[in-house]
């Protein structure tokens, strides 16, 4: 194979890369460039934007008060004056789906961010430093990992002082706090193993030989190459955390009525599973769409950060 054919084949492989000489490029700018061309990115970004808008400004989507119960029309089917029907309390399901986005999105996003930051940092530290630091951090992680999620969350939430029940944000943060405390070890383990995998590579050694500081080595060599598995797992976990929030609400801890969340609605709809399944269907649909949007975005970001996939 000659130089000419190599040049040709590689320029065929990525036609958008034709401007070789152009302005300076970096991984971030190239990733953004490739994401912009990906329809999946725009679909997922639009969905997430809609859900975030729902969470920030629910009255934009509905004029109905989600806490206005019409008991006489309890379990009304969709179309009987409402879009999605009414639930067992006579609440408008559409309005509750819109208003429920706030709690679910907040719990999902905050918990994911929290576990990624805490677990990722601890994973990078223990993977990069190794030795006794690694042993200590890994054993601490094992301790938290050994506690069953639901049992741990119940104990944690019940034992928190009443101060946390004061306002809406604190209640959400309480749940987030419990899930982060119990959820970080899996991400820390994942990150630790990918850092250990990346660290002995020659390009890391080369950076050290150039006199790069540990921070630079981690930031520009280890993190970009170790991040992919965590992005995938974190976005999948986001859905799981929204579901766990629903479970906790169902068990009577976590978010409590009159707070509105998809989780609460899903668990209260179980009673009508066979007779009026629409009560379960609509909040579940919203939950699934939100989770799908985040998973899709995670996939797109992971692909964009890998130059070989372009």
């Amino acid at each position, binding site marked *: 194979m*000659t130089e000419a054919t190599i040049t040709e084949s590689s320029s065929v492989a990525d036609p958008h*890369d034709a401007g070789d000489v152009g302005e300076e490029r970096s991984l971030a700018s190239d990733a953004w460039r490739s994401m912009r061309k990906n329809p999946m990115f725009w679909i997922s970004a639009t969905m997430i934007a809609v859900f975030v808008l729902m969470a920030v400004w629910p009255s934009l989507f509905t004029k109905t008060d989600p806490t206005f119960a019409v008991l006489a029309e309890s379990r009304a089917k969709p179309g009987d004056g409402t879009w999605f029907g009414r639930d067992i309390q006579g609440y408008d399901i559409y309005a509750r789906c819109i208003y429920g986005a706030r709690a679910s999105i907040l719990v999902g996003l905050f918990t994911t961010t929290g576990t990624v930051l805490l677990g990722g940092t601890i994973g990078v530290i223990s993977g990069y430093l190794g030795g006794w630091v690694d042993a200590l951090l890994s054993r601490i992680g094992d301790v938290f990992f050994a506690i069953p999620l639901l049992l741990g969350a119940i104990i944690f939430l019940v034992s928190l002082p009443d101060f946390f029940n004061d306002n809406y944000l604190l209640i959400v943060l309480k749940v987030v706090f419990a899930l982060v405390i119990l959820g970080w070890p899996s991400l820390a383990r994942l990150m630790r193993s990918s850092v250990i995998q990346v660290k002995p590579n020659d390009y890391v050694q080369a950076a050290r030989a150039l006199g790069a500081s540990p921070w630079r080595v981690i930031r520009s060599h280890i993190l970009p190459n170790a991040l992919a598995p965590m992005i995938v797992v974190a976005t999948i976990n986001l859905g799981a955390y929204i579901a766990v929030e629903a479970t906790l609400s169902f068990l009577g801890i976590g978010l409590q009525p009159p707070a509105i969340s998809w989780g609460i609605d899903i668990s209260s709809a179980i009673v009508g599973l066979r007779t009026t399944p629409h009560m379960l269907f609509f909040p579940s649909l919203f939950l699934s769409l939100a989770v799908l949007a985040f998973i899709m975005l995670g996939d797109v970001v992971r692909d964009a950060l890998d130059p070989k996939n372009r």
Partner: protein
Amino acid sequence: MPEVVLSAQNLVKHYPIRRGVLRRTVGHVKAVDGVSFDLHKGETLGIVGESGCGKSTLGRLLMRLEEPTSGSVVFEGQDWSGASPKDTRRLRRDIQIVFQDPYTSLNPRMTVGDIVGEPFEIHADVVPKGGRRKRVQELLDLVGLNPEHINRYPHQFSGGQRQRIGIARGIALNPKVLVCDEPVSALDVSVQAQVVNLMEKLQDELGLAYVFIAHDLSVVRHISDRVGVMYLGRMAELGEEDEVYARPTHPYTQALLSAVPVPDPTLRGKRDQIVLVGDVPSPANPPSGCRFHTRCWKAQDVCSQQEPQLELRDDGHGAHLSACHFAEPRVIVETTDVSGLQPDTRFTTTEVGDVPDSGAGLGAAGGGEELGSSQADSTAERAEAMDPPARRPDDLSALTEDPQDRPR
């Protein structure tokens, strides 16, 4: 003799072996065990030896990627072992490394511009910020790559091109010493020739001194001024390229050289090939006295009791450093010295257009017809020098894997 730039003084690297729950240290792997040499300005010191003899560890010690257990690395009279972090950073500008595997030595998520430009980011005062991109393009040009490919990623290049990127990164800070840890072992033969020629060109232009670590004796002979032979963490023999290759006095060097495949079928079976018996002893428990005595045909009682020092020993013409009690020269049919010949310009660039002599790799018979006789000779000789690794990439396996030619 020019001044000494880099000097290794009795370098030792022992890795602890830990066992059990308490991770008690039960022994040490003696990867490098007392190696000393001087590297002069602008010269190439080849380090050869079989797998596991400590060559790469030595390179990493020289680069301070590993802390030596004892001994020191002295750069231009300054001891690098006790240097402060600030001095170490400064010294790193003067000693750089090129790695063996071009597929793992470049960060797959950085553009070539970022990879070659990273030295300037770390040592920000070398090139002002505005001029860095231009400097990177100059470097790419210098190593024979298209400067317009600055925005490409490593996976868009071939192995040889990637190794050039690695070399460009290594020379970016204008180092005085470049440690090359098997820089051509992962490349195929024609590309090896390109890269070796490039390194010679850079040495002439930039006055670099190379520590060239390799297991390929032909390549080492081609590029080196002096050669050191390592066995089990020790230097067995060290001397000028001629002295080591033409008049080896250490039995291990002789065995090593006799195992180099000679691309001449008429010599088959006629060569005096020394086949060593047994395996390399474990570096965790090296033999007493001379490390080679367990496999040496000359070994006597003194070898297992008294350790031979690396000192000047007679080699017939003069004397060079050798660590054998019974050092004596022995003529081995070995690789051809092509260092006196005109460098072959056909492979110095990656732009392979129409090479009129497409059969050059086949030796005189394949490519000699169209050439004048002197040129044909040089082609053949060069082909001999470059061919062996293609046929048997691991020369040293011949030491133990050739039952047919046992000496009688």
